[in-house]
């Protein structure tokens, strides 16, 4: 086929030289009113080669796209070509069913309208499905949000401070408390909690999707190969592009905000989980297998623990990226700090935008430090509950029964605990 067409390529390109300014593929799709038959005549010069009149219909008949493009009258690219001189194509008879091979290279493929129709179709037929997906996200989100907002500000600051102390040490706890107090003083506490609940909810779903997916990608090279472009696309496609379809499918509000955030924040978690598991030394895998580890044991006792620093880095990245999505998500009516920033920009109220931005930064730094500290391998104490504030409580509860209860087991354990510390 290509061989018979090759002479026409040259005619097409020569004809195109006159069309050059108008036939660029970048022009956006236009209104739906123009009849379908209008667009091919914008791009017919290639068909003028008489020897093609027989081969082209055959190609059209073979092509599955042909029917899709002709059926709805919405297809159109002619409007933007309206100013161009009418192409010299006279032989329209062979191409009147609206698709021709030459469209593959002269940039007149109606890809954009296909996408629009595809989306319309999905919205028409699958909206109930997406509304069902909404359910769990919605309930998680409102649960988290209700919880965060119901706790009094100072109690919440104290709680987060304790968490930071437990997992990141005393200095970090101090930093966390100070930044949270600053947020409270700025008067943006409720907004910050809404944002935090959004971020945490999307993190929950990122973990639920990303960890299994990362494990799968680490196991199978084929899955890795096929998922990589998808992950690339998720990470690099501008958020504005999928903002619209997400709104069409999920409506507006916090739930689509979480969905958009998940799309953006998921890839690094998947990648770093997969990478972490793949980087486990092969001799350790071999050793585990040589000692009779089942695939599940291999995963839970060797691969995941050893990949943990990498996975924690992934979680940290997912958190950071979700926070950076907050402002964009606010464009689809997601509340919180992002909304403040957006509103500030809209009203040219720099003060409002800056305060919102500062809140995001402080929240980000606090979350980042805590999750990074979680990724550090811990040694010394055998269990996490033996350090930090929990360790304090633990020791208190352990010490008390030791002299009181003469039960041999208890006192032995307490003695052991005392010995450890």
């Amino acid at each position, binding site marked *: 086929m290509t061989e018979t067409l090759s002479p026409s390529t040259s005619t097409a390109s020569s004809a195109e030289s006159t069309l050059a300014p108008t036939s660029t593929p970048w022009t956006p799709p236009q209104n739906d009113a123009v009849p379908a038959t209008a667009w091919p005549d914008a791009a017919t010069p290639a068909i003028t080669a008489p020897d093609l009149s027989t081969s082209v219909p055959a190609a059209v008949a073979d092509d599955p796209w042909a029917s899709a493009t002709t059926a709805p009258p919405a297809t159109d690219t002619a409007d933007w070509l309206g100013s161009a001189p009418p192409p010299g194509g006279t032989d329209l008879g062979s191409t009147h069913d609206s698709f021709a091979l030459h469209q593959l290279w002269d940039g007149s493929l109606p890809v954009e309208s296909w996408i629009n129709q595809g989306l319309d179709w999905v919205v028409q037929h699958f909206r109930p499905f997406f509304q069902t997906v909404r359910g769990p996200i919605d309930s998680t989100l409102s649960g988290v949000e209700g919880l965060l907002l119901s706790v009094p500000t100072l109690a919440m600051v104290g709680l987060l401070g304790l968490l930071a102390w437990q997992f990141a040490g005393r200095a970090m706890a101090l930093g966390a408390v100070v930044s949270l107090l600053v947020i409270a003083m700025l008067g943006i506490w409720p907004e910050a909690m809404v944002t935090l609940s959004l971020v945490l909810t999307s993190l929950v779903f990122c973990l639920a999707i990303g960890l299994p997916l990362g494990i799968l990608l680490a196991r199978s090279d084929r899955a890795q190969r096929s998922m990589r472009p998808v992950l690339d696309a998720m990470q690099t496609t501008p958020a504005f592009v999928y903002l619209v379809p997400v709104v069409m499918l999920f409506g507006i509000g916090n739930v689509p905000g979480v969905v958009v955030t998940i799309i953006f924040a998921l890839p690094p978690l998947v990648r770093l989980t997969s990478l972490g598991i793949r980087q486990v*030394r092969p001799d350790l895998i071999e*050793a*585990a*297998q040589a000692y*009779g580890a089942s695939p599940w044991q291999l995963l839970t006792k*060797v691969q995941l623990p*050893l990949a943990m620093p990498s996975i924690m880095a992934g979680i940290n990245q997912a958190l950071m990226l979700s926070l950076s999505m907050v402002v964009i998500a606010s464009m689809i009516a997601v509340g919180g700090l992002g909304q403040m920033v957006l509103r500030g920009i809209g009203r040219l109220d720099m003060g409002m935008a800056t305060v919102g931005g500062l809140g995001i930064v402080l929240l980000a730094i606090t979350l980042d430090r805590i999750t990074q500290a979680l990724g550090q391998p811990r040694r010394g104490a055998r269990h996490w509950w033996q350090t930090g504030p929990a360790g304090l409580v633990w020791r208190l509860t352990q010490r008390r029964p030791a002299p009181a209860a003469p039960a041999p087991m208890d006192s032995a354990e307490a003695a052991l605990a005392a010995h450890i510390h």
Partner: protein
Amino acid sequence: MAQPITIEHVFKVFGDTPEIAMDLAYQGCSKPDILARTGHSVAVFDAHMTIEAGEIFVIMGLSGSGKSTLVRLINRLIEPTAGRILIDGRDINAASDRALRALRRKDISMVFQSFALMPHMTVLDNTAFGLELAGVGKAERQRQAALALEQVGLAGWGDSYPDELSGGMQQRVGLARALASDPSILLMDEAFSALDPIIRTEMQSELLRLQKVKRRTIVFISHDLDEAMRIGDRIAIMRDGHVVQVGTPDEILRHPADDYVRSFVRGVDAAAVFKAGDIARQPITVVAEHADRGARAALKLLQDQDRDHAYVVSPTHSYLGVVSADSLRTALQGHVGALGLAHAYLPGVQPIIEDEPVSELIGRVAQASHAIPVVAPGGHFRGAISKNTLLRFLDRDTPPIEPAATAEAANATTL
């Protein structure tokens, strides 16, 4: 308890279509040929041997000779392309995944060149790793792991992490991990190669000691012939995937199968491998039939043969003593009638036990004025080692010792 391993015509081809390479292999193509024609690497080529229960079987070869692949075929970390491997008569390639895991958890342990200790676990947890996988309760597995650590001399290190230990200690942990489940088969993949020479010798002794405590079938991979000769009951030498020769250390030293093995064993310290009994030769022996005569006959024999010393054995061939022409003459001086040989024994002759390594004899042989007698642990006379014998043995470039040994044996005379 120890289990034998039978390896029956095992092939392993790495590549996508091993059948093609196998066809070529059956047609007699060599490994480089097959690699050039199909891009497939034949790692193990028709390995066929039996590893006896309770022996230390060393598989030797240079890197790339397929020895590591062969050992991984035994616990099926790698699936063979063709052939069967039987452990205690059971074909492990027919085993289900579950049965295979049970086998690996209970019967076959492995020690790795890189130690392969889990960095996120303490030494005790590492040692208990196999037991943990087998589902043994925490208290029980920690008790067994502590015992295993004690066996390798690391009691009290249980709470450390592997990276806090030296290389030698880490490999002791590796060994303890392998011993914790009390397996009947131990696979050691260049287990001591990453250790420095002194620690390596120490670990070899440790292994031999453990083997004395409880006999296991040990398959030991090594590229160090001295190590192989020291610890191996039998040795298989591999080259390009082929098993070139299987035999005891001195079979391999005495009768190398081909030039490759010969060049391989040239550098080995033979004095450490060969035992006194291996190089002892038959000197003139005199059998003391009666306690009260024989001295005169012995003296005549020595004079006729122009020799200085004779070795006296009992009729059951037990060693009794050494006489020399001088000592016989002195004993007979002024004596009338028959005299027992016992009167003419040289004083202070300490016979060598036959399994002493040659390297430890050099001083004693050099100091003695005569060939030193060699006896079996029961007192049975094995021969004698003279300075001449020892020098000829140590001179590695002159052709082997066995023709001389047989010629000398023909010289023995019995009275």
